[in-house]
C-alpha cells in the first residue's frame, strides 16, 4: 500500500511539472507586469530596470529553470505587488478557502448521494422529474452568475446576509456569528453547483445498482427498502462517483475562484484572481503548483477510498 502511494506520487511529478511549464509560458504571453507595476511612473528606462531586477529580461527557459530551482528549495519567490513571500500570502489565504470548499464539498456530496438515490428509486415519477429540472437549472448556471443572483436576492433584496468579505467592519467586536454569516452565501453557491452535478451522476449510478441481482437477493432476505437502497445498493453505486470526485477537485477549485472573486472573499481564489490582473507571476505560479498538488492528492485519495470500499481492488 505504501509502495503504491509512493509510486503514484512519483508518477505524478512529470504531470505537475508539465502544468507548471505550460502556465509559465502562457502567463507570460498574457503580458508583462512592468507596466502595471509602474503605473503613472512608467518610462522606458524604468521599465527596463524593473524588468531586470525582477529577472524578466532573461530568456524564458532560464527564468523557468531558476523558478524551478527555487521551488525545489521550498522558495516560491516574492510577490511583486505585495512585496511579501508568496508562501506567506498563500498560507494566509488557504484556511479561508479550505473552510468553504470542505464544507461545501462534504455537504454537497452527502446531500447529492441522498437526493440521487431517492431520485433513482422513484425514477420517472413527478418527484424525479421536478428534481431533474431543478438540477439542470443549477447545473447549467455559471458559478459566478449564481453567486451574483444569491447576492441580489439574499443581500440586496432581503438584506439577510452580507454580500462579501469575512468580517463586518462596522462591528466593534465581530465574533463567530458574524464570521459564519459571511460564509453562508459563498458556501451555498459552491454547494448548489456541485449538488446538481453530483445528484445526476448518483441518480444514474444508483439506477444501475438497483437493477442488479444482489438487490433482489437483499429483498428476498426480507430487507426493508431503506436497507436495500442505503446499505446494499449505495455502497456499490458510490464507487464510480469516488473516481469522479478525484477528477473534479480542480473543477471545484476553479468554482471557488469565481465565488471568492464575486464575494470578495480573501481565499486562494481571490489571491489568484488579483495576481492574474496584476500579472504577479510568482503568486500565479505558486497557486498553480498548489492546484497541481491538490489534483494529484485528490486522485490518490479517491483511489485509496475506492480500495477501501471495493474489496475487489488490490493495490500493487
Amino acid at each position: 500500500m505504501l509502495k503504491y502511494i509512493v509510486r503514484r506520487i512519483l508518477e505524478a511529478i512529470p504531470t505537475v511539472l508539465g502544468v507548471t511549464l505550460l502556465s509559465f509560458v502562457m502567463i507570460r504571453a498574457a503580458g508583462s507586469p512592468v507596466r502595471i507595476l509602474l503605473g503613472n511612473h512608467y518610462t522606458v528606462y524604468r521599465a527596463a530596470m524593473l524588468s531586470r531586477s525582477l529577472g524578466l529580461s532573461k530568456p524564458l527557459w532560464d527564468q523557468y529553470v531558476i523558478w524551478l530551482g527555487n521551488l525545489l528549495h521550498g522558495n516560491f519567490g516574492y510577490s511583486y505587488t505585495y512585496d511579501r513571500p508568496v508562501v506567506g500570502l498563500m498560507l494566509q489565504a488557504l484556511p479561508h478557502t479550505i473552510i468553504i470548499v470542505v464544507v461545501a464539498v462534504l455537504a454537497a456530496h452527502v446531500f447529492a448521494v441522498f437526493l440521487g438515490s431517492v431520485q433513482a428509486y422513484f425514477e420517472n415519477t413527478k418527484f424525479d422529474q421536478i428534481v431533474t429540472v431543478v438540477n439542470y437549472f443549477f447545473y447549467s448556471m455559471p458559478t459566478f452568475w449564481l453567486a451574483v443572483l444569491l447576492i441580489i436576492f439574499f443581500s440586496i433584496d432581503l438584506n439577510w446576509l452580507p454580500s462579501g468579505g469575512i468580517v463586518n467592519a462596522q462591528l466593534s467586536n465581530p465574533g463567530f456569528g458574524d464570521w459564519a454569516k459571511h460564509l453562508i452565501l459563498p458556501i451555498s453557491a459552491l454547494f448548489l453547483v456541485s449538488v446538481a452535478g453530483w445528484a445526476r451522476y448518483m441518480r444514474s449510478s444508483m439506477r444501475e445498482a438497483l437493477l442488479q441481482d444482489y438487490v433482489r437477493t437483499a429483498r428476498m432476505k426480507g430487507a426493508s427498502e431503506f436497507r436495500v437502497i442505503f446499505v446494499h445498493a449505495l455502497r456499490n453505486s458510490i464507487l464510480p462517483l469516488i473516481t469522479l470526485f478525484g477528477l473534479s477537485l480542480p473543477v471545484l477549485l476553479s468554482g471557488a475562484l469565481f465565488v471568492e472573486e464575486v464575494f470578495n472573499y480573501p481565499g486562494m481564489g481571490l489571491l489568484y484572481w488579483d495576481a492574474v490582473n496584476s500579472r504577479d507571476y510568482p503568486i500565479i505560479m505558486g497557486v498553480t503548483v498548489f492546484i497541481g498538488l491538490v489534483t494529484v492528492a485528490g486522485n490518490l485519495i479517491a483511489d485509496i477510498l475506492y480500495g477501501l470500499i471495493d474489496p475487489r481492488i488490490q493495490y500493487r
Partner: protein
Amino acid sequence: MHKRCQTTLPGGAVLSNVLEVDSLSVEFRINGEYFHAVHDVSFHIESGETLGIVGESGCGKSVTSLALLRLLTKNARVSGEVSYKGRNLLDLPDREMRQIRGNEVSMIFQEPMTSLNPVYKIGAQISEALRLHTQTTPRRAWQQSMEMLRSVGIARAEGVMGEYPHQLSGGMRQRVMIAMSMVCNPQLLIADEPTTALDVTIQAQILDLMRKLSKDLGTSVLLITHDLGVVAEMCDRVAVMYAGEIVEQGTAKDIFHNPQHPYTRGLLNAIPKLDAASKERLQPIEGNVPSLTRMPKGCHFAPRCPLVFEKCRAEAPGLFRVEPGHLSRCWLNDAQEGN
C-alpha cells in the same frame, strides 16, 4: 375454483399445504402494452414435499417464482392468489411480506455469480438474514451463520465467512446462497434453477445437499429446472410449463410413465439416453417458445405440436383431468371429445 386446503392421507394423518397458488397471472408492460408472461397458473405444495416446475427457457419459470415473493420488477402486473398458510401474499402489507421473505419462504436464484453483494463479506450477508428476523446478538448470528456454512458442506467455513464473493467459485457461491436462504429455517424454499450455471459434478453435489437439507429440516421445496433428469431425482410432483401456462401436472410417476400432453412427451423424448445399447437419436421438439408479444391464439403449443388439429388453433384448451391429481391442457384429454 375447487380449493384444497388439507389432504387427508389414508392413515388419517393430515397434510396441510404450505403454498397454494390460484390462477396466478403475470403481465409485463412492453412499450405501453401489457403482455402475459404467466397465465392462469395454479398449483399447491404440500408440507415437506418437493414440487418441480419444468419447461424450456423462456416459458415463465423464473417469472412465476419471483411473483410468489413479489420480487418482480415494477413493470410487472400480478393477479391471482398466492396463499401461504392461509394468507394471500399478493395483498399482504409490505411489512408483513418482509417478515415472510427470507424467514418463512426463501429463494435461491439462477445466477450464483451475481446474486451476492460484491462489497460485503459472506459472513455479513448470511447473518443479515438472521439479524433481520431474529433477536440474536451479532456474535450469535455470526456463529450460527458459520454453522450453517458448515452444514452446506463448506469445510473452511470460518475463513469463508470473512471472504468476499469474488474470492469464491460459482459452486461455493451457490452454497453460500443456500446457507443464506436456509439459515432462518424456512417452511418453503424456492430454488430457481439452482444448478444450471454450475458444471455437472458440482450440480450433483448441490442437488444432494438440497435434498438432504430439505429432508433434515422438513422444508418444502419448489424446484424450478429445465432438466427432467433433475426432476426425476428430486421431485414428488411435477408441473410442466409451456409459454406461460402449466400444460401438465401430476406425480413424478404420472409424468414419467404416463405423459399425456404432447409437449411433455416431446420433452421426455429429448432426454439423451445414456444407455449405450439403444441407438435412439435425441428428438428435440421442433421450433421455439413463442415470445410474449406473439402468443398464438388457440393452444400455445399448437404451432409445434405433432398432433395438432383444427380445434387447437381456434380455441385454447383448459386443464383436463386425466386421473385424480393428473391434469393435462390438451384437447386430446377432453373427455367430452370422446378420446
